[in-house]
């Protein structure tokens, strides 16, 4: 693979940001966090505002438009932000920064992002990559809920209810979004909604029980994942709360 130059180290001011365009047209923002460099998507995942115009204090980036915030080291959303930043690993060679490949769907996703690499590898090892055409149904109400899914690309919509009485139940469109969580819960052996690909989609399918075994092997990380899962479920099912 040819190396893609992102920018020179000196181009990014200390505790500052710079928008860079890589050969091939990919745009990203590079943050200099006390001499460590992090690359991530150039536009706010909220409303296409250039993130290089954001406020950066050396670790937290704030989009000036609606005050969404992220930890630039992990891309994790903070405060009001509803979505993580997609990161682009950077490799430093001398005074230059190169693109170090693309983060995997597991690593950018809100459930597993920032886990110890060892654990991510184990989870990734048990994942089956699947491609589905537009219109493919992944599961229906009542189907066994043994696996959960991580979206890599494409788009999946949910319908709740059966037959004539179905209603839209939301949709997934961001790389790393997780659905079919029932597979990670006790006492929910069957699907309660149907999931259908609205576009040709690429997914990681992971068996819930084997993922739980991996998480049990590192209880601290497993606990963090379960806390995030609880937060995710609340966000989908609960009201806006004190937002």
């Amino acid at each position, binding site marked *: 693979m040819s190396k893609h130059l992102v920018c020179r180290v000196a181009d990014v001011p200390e505790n500052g940001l710079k928008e860079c365009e890589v050969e091939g047209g990919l745009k990203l923002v590079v943050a200099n966090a006390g001499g460590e460099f992090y690359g991530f998507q150039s536009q706010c995942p*909220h*409303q*296409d505002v250039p993130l290089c115009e954001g*406020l950066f*204090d050396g670790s937290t980036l*704030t989009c*000036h438009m*609606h*005050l*969404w*915030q992220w930890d630039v080291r992990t891309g994790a959303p903070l*405060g*009001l932000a*509803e979505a993580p930043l997609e990161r682009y690993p950077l490799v430093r060679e001398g005074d230059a920064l190169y693109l170090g490949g693309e983060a995997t769907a597991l690593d950018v996703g809100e459930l597993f992002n920032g886990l110890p690499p060892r654990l991510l590898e184990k989870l990734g090892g048990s994942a089956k990559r699947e491609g589905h055409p537009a219109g493919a149904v992944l599961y229906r109400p009542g189907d066994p809920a043994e696996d959960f899914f991580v979206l890599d690309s494409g788009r999946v*919509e949910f319908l709740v209810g059966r037959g004539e009485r179905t*209603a*839209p*139940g*939301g*949709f*997934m*469109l961001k790389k790393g979004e997780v659905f079919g969580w029932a597979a990670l819960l006790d006492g929910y052996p069957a699907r309660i909604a149907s999931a259908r690909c609205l576009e040709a989609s690429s997914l990681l399918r992971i068996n819930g029980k084997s993922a739980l075994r991996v998480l049990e092997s590192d209880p601290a990380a497993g606990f963090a994942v379960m806390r995030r899962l609880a937060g995710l479920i609340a*966000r*989908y*099912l*609960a*009201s*806006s709360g004190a937002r």
Partner: protein
Amino acid sequence: MRVQLNARNRGYAFEAKAGEHVLYAGLRAGIDLPYECATGTCGTCKAKLVSGRVRDGWPGAPGKKFVKPQANEFLMCQCAAEGPLTLEVSKFVYEMEPGACVPQTCAGTVRNPRPLTHDVIGFALELERPRDFDAGQFMLLAPAGVSGYRGYSMCNFARGGRRLEFVVKRKPDGGFSQWLFGANRDGARLDSFGPLGKATFDPALGKNLLCIAGGSGIAGMMSILARAAAAHYFDRHKGWLFFGIRSMRDAFFLKELSAYAAEITVALSEQDVPEAAKRDWPTLRFEQGLVHDVARRSMAGRYRDVRAYVAGPPPAVDAAIRVLLLEAKLTTDNIRYDKYS
């Protein structure tokens, strides 16, 4: 007309009247759709048309720069359904909380319009029906039968009241402002929609209150101060208000501000502080400088347990937010802002 709105977390169905803009129809139904200005500027309410047709009430809206027409995106605040619609909003959308002041349309009458300065008019809107709102909220106003709402913050606070107080600054391109300044409008009829806005204050907050207002951004702060004072809030919590104007000839509400048990500072950006100002208003502080700079100088080291409210022209709001985030280190949930664009 039936509107089916699919959000990231679930779908909603609601009815829109003929000609009614989609955003207002959804809000009226108690669905907390995304918006900020609700008048075509900020782009926050953009949605994607999946099926059906919409009529765009303002093709030249500034907020159009945030939408991609080739992706069938449109601004919900400017477009009306021309039949059944299905649309998609790429955000989490929830129902409004129980007890929220659900926005409604309501007609009313202009009362007591009066000049407050050379370019600011104050007036009351007497509504046909009582209307609850939260301190810091705004209403959309338009002369009866004229399309194109503008948003104005209420200056007063009352539960179950029919009288809303407003201030309006003269703007060369402001439709409503030109109408109001164009003649004596006492008794004129207005259409309104609201209340709107999330930069609200409730005494249950229990934090020290920092208000930074540029020019007519003082309106919402007056409502917040009125709400706080009625609850004796400043017996238990500190309050600071910074009111930025160019010079003393732009000053208004100084008498009202003098009555509050909060520390009130008037920042003059284009004039040295006149001795007469200090003499005439002994309970107010006066400082020379831009309002965010004056606030930064005065507030250094006093940000503990603070909730900040910021309102005014976008550059003033952005400058204040920068201070609050980077210097005061407030968390974003403790910064509520309202950009008057």
